[in-house]
């Protein structure tokens, strides 16, 4: 068959595509479980960190998660909630975590937000993924930024990210947090995402789900 004939060209393209796609599918299949396990581990680490729980000595994040955290799956047909809640401890002193996400400046930002049972304080915020500008908006993933949220009391049920010293708001009682210098839009996006998360926690609390 001539190399430039239509039949050869079509046949060749088909065979080559099929062969390469087969190997990709194979590679994907072989690593699928590992990738899923990595993702689950990263998620569990974030949930533990947001809830302020640390794995004990010699304990893996997976083990700590299974020991400490209770997953509360939403009841079928609950409007507006598809993702599970995570609870640490019980009763009045329990802390609840849930994933929150929303648009950032460049791409989606997703995080785990944890609050107390009364939704009066943030227990912690842990970034899971973000694609903000490295060195600017990307700094929302840095420890000083997320540490500000730890134990922050809400003011009017919300938080406010404002222009501050750029090195972290030291007062956990005012419901205000320092924005990242040079990343106004990303900081505003975090504020929006956290406040939306707080609103849905409040709805759950009012619905008697946080106890």
């Amino acid at each position: 068959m001539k190399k430039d004939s239509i039949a050869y060209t079509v046949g060749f393209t088909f065979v080559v595509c099929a062969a390469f796609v087969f190997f990709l599918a194979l590679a994907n299949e072989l690593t699928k479980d590992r990738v899923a396990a990595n993702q689950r581990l990263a998620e569990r680490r974030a949930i533990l960190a947001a809830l302020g729980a640390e794995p004990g000595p010699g304990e893996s994040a997976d083990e700590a998660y299974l020991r400490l955290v209770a997953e509360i799956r939403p009841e079928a047909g609950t409007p507006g909630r598809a993702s599970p809640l995570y609870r640490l401890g019980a009763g009045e002193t329990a802390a609840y975590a849930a994933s929150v996400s929303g648009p950032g400046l460049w791409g989606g930002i997703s995080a785990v937000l944890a609050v107390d049972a009364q939704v009066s304080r943030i227990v912690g915020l842990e970034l899971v993924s973000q694609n903000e500008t490295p060195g600017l908006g990307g700094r929302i993933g840095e420890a000083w930024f997320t540490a500000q949220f730890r134990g922050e009391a809400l003011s009017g049920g919300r938080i406010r990210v404002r222009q501050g010293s750029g090195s972290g708001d030291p007062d956990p009682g005012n419901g205000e947090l320092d924005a990242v210098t040079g990343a106004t839009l990303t900081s505003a996006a975090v504020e929006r995402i956290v406040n939306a998360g707080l609103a849905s926690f409040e709805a759950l609390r009012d619905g008697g789900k946080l106890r």
Partner: protein
Amino acid sequence: MSPAKKRGAAASILVDNLWWNNPVFVQVLGICSTLAVTNNLSNTLIMTTGVSLATAFSSATLSAMNKAIPAKVRMIVQVLVISFYVIIIDIVLRAYLPEVSRSLGPYVGLIITNCIIMGRAEAFARSNPPALSFWDGLTSGLGYMAVLVAIAVVRELFGFGSFAGVPLLGPRWTSWTIMIMAPSAFFLLAMAMWGLKTLQERMKGGKR
């Protein structure tokens, strides 16, 4: 004609790709990623390693397949092979280096669009045997790596005050925000090109 041409094929390819015909400062290819990933050294190293491997393997594969590829779909097949290797790299990173995969985010997928890979496939792998094409792809990647790493060191040092994530300049250092943003890579790349091309011209002049 560069002075490197007198040596053995493999050595002359190495010298050519690293210096006389460097993909970044002579051929001016792969500039998009130069802007995007060079504000921190570890990402730069991983990204450029990915580009080197993708270029090497796709060049070797395309060279081996070359006789069978119909002219009409040559570029389609090139893109197919390149994206195949890039996706493999992405899968490997996700499975075995999840932290790295997360910090590189969408950049790994963007290796596909790196002009160096297709440039080497077109310019070299089409007319050379697989082993030599592999070597050519790898060394092209190394030439790219050398320039990007140099730029990344400068950008990270001034932009974050650190070297490969290790704080170097202390807490009193005021970071230069411009160094973190893409425009600084333009300035630094242009300065690097200027300096290195001048040096090349001098070296060529000295040989005459």
